[in-house]
């Protein structure tokens, strides 16, 4: 039952990509910006979780919550300081700024603590569970459950709460949303807060799963999550989730069949293929709406 084991590994890696991809896609949906600093918020989340666990001796869940709260604040600050004034600028100006913010976060982190990696403490129970003949780590299951809970929570916020409805309205038509009395600036802040909280959670999960974190750890998962978001259809929330899972599974399969060096290449090949074959992504909207 090796394949089942690999599938579950793929799903849990994919769930991390999906959590990061959600922030990409939500921010893109609302201000049409690819926030390249998002992967670094993920890195900050991993470090905040690390400090919470090692210095303040917290458990996994409290550390996760702290990382989410701090990251949501960081996300809002990034938006207010760097992106808000570019609301009416060209897209390329905003994109360049996002890359700048990304470097700023990475090298500020290196400046203050150096580039040496940190070993994440063992916080989750490590027992092997036998399911249908597959040996599955309890940690993997735990991570999967946490991710799914976060995704359900996000779906609830986006579809059932007032702020979620405001987010959908603004992403569809900001001026029309203004006419409803929606405060567009606050709604954009809330989007950054929620997206960054998910990235922070992904950071803590990543740290406790892969046990090694460093200030540049956000670069590759950030890019992969971006690919996942494009694969699913950028701007689409279910797309980001599905894209994340698909990417995680493909990477795991590529490694499992013996081409582990090709893992990252596989992700980028997917990006190229999707851009050629279906640029709108799996859930992308190509339908023209009736006026």
């Amino acid at each position, binding site marked *: 039952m090796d394949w089942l084991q690999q599938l579950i590994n793929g799903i849990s890696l994919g769930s991390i990509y999906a959590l990061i991809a959600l922030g990409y896609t939500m921010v893109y949906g609302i201000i049409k910006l690819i926030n390249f600093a998002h992967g670094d918020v993920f890195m900050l989340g991993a470090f905040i979780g690390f400090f919470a666990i090692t210095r303040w001796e917290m458990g996994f869940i409290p550390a996760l919550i702290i990382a989410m709260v701090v990251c949501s604040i960081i996300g809002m600050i990034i938006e207010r300081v760097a992106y808000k004034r570019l609301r009416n600028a060209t897209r390329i100006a905003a994109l360049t700024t996002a890359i700048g913010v990304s470097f700023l976060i990475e090298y500020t982190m290196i400046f203050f603590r150096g580039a040496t990696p940190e070993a994440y403490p063992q916080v989750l129970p490590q027992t092997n569970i036998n399911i249908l003949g597959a040996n599955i780590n309890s940690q993997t299951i735990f991570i999967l459950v946490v991710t799914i809970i976060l995704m359900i929570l996000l779906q609830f916020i986006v579809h059932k709460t*007032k702020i979620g*409805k*405001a987010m*959908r*309205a603004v992403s*569809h*038509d900001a*001026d*029309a*949303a*203004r*006419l*409803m*009395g*929606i*405060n567009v600036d606050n709604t954009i802040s809330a989007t950054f807060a929620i997206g960054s909280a998910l990235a922070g959670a992904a950071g803590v999960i990543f740290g406790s799963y892969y046990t090694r974190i460093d200030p540049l750890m956000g670069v590759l998962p950030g890019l992969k999550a971006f690919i996942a978001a494009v694969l699913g259809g950028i701007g689409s929330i279910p797309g980001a989730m599905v894209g994340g899972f698909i990417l995680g599974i493909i990477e795991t399969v590529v490694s499992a069949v013996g081409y582990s060096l090709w893992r990252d290449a596989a992700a980028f090949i997917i990006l190229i293929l999707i851009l050629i074959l279906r640029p709108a992504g799996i859930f992308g909207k190509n339908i023209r*709406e*009736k*006026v």
Partner: protein
Amino acid sequence: MLQVNNIDVFYGNIHALKNISLEVNEGEIVTLIGANGAGKTTLLKTLSGLLKPKQGTITYKMQQIGGKPAQAIVKSGISHVPEGRRVFANMSVEENLELGAFLRKDRDGIKKDLDHVFELFPRLKERRKQLSGTLSGGEQQMLAMGRAIMARPNLLLLDEPSMGLAPLIVQQIFEIIQTINKEGTTILLVEQNAHMALSIADRAYVIETGKIVLSGTAKELQESEEVKAAYLGGV
């Protein structure tokens, strides 16, 4: 109720509204007619806070609203049905209507107004769970109006409700505008269809290249030679 005094509005470098003054009294239907690009939509956008006047004042119920953010203006009781409906196509009819009541907290009142909107527009009730992007143009217009009513406005700004609709639907929409007005909502109606607009309005203004060139009661304008020639396609 609403007084606009000498406002100037710029769209980037374009001087879109030049020294515009107008007035809307409680209970009236006032219409603003003019050709494409005359500045009608710009004026409504300025009234609802999407654009800011460079000069001049806008007074609503004794309060200065010129240059205030849109959400403050919605809160003060002005709702704007934008040109081209601008419904939230990715959401259901019901969600669109809920968003209209975004700033309200009185759950019972919202429920009552929702029922009232469904009474005014029975088609919307039939389609309440449907995505609004799949509605016909006429239905989207109804939805846009219903959504604005959900804010329970005292003054309703309507931008080209007849645009792109079949004559029969236009007729229906205009009847509903009159009903809404009789129920106590003051209306400022922007139209290219001058004939229809003047037939239901109390008073009217004619706008040309950013300036008000004529004003008077709807009857006077209907009989004015200039209006007949330029807007009513008459002799």
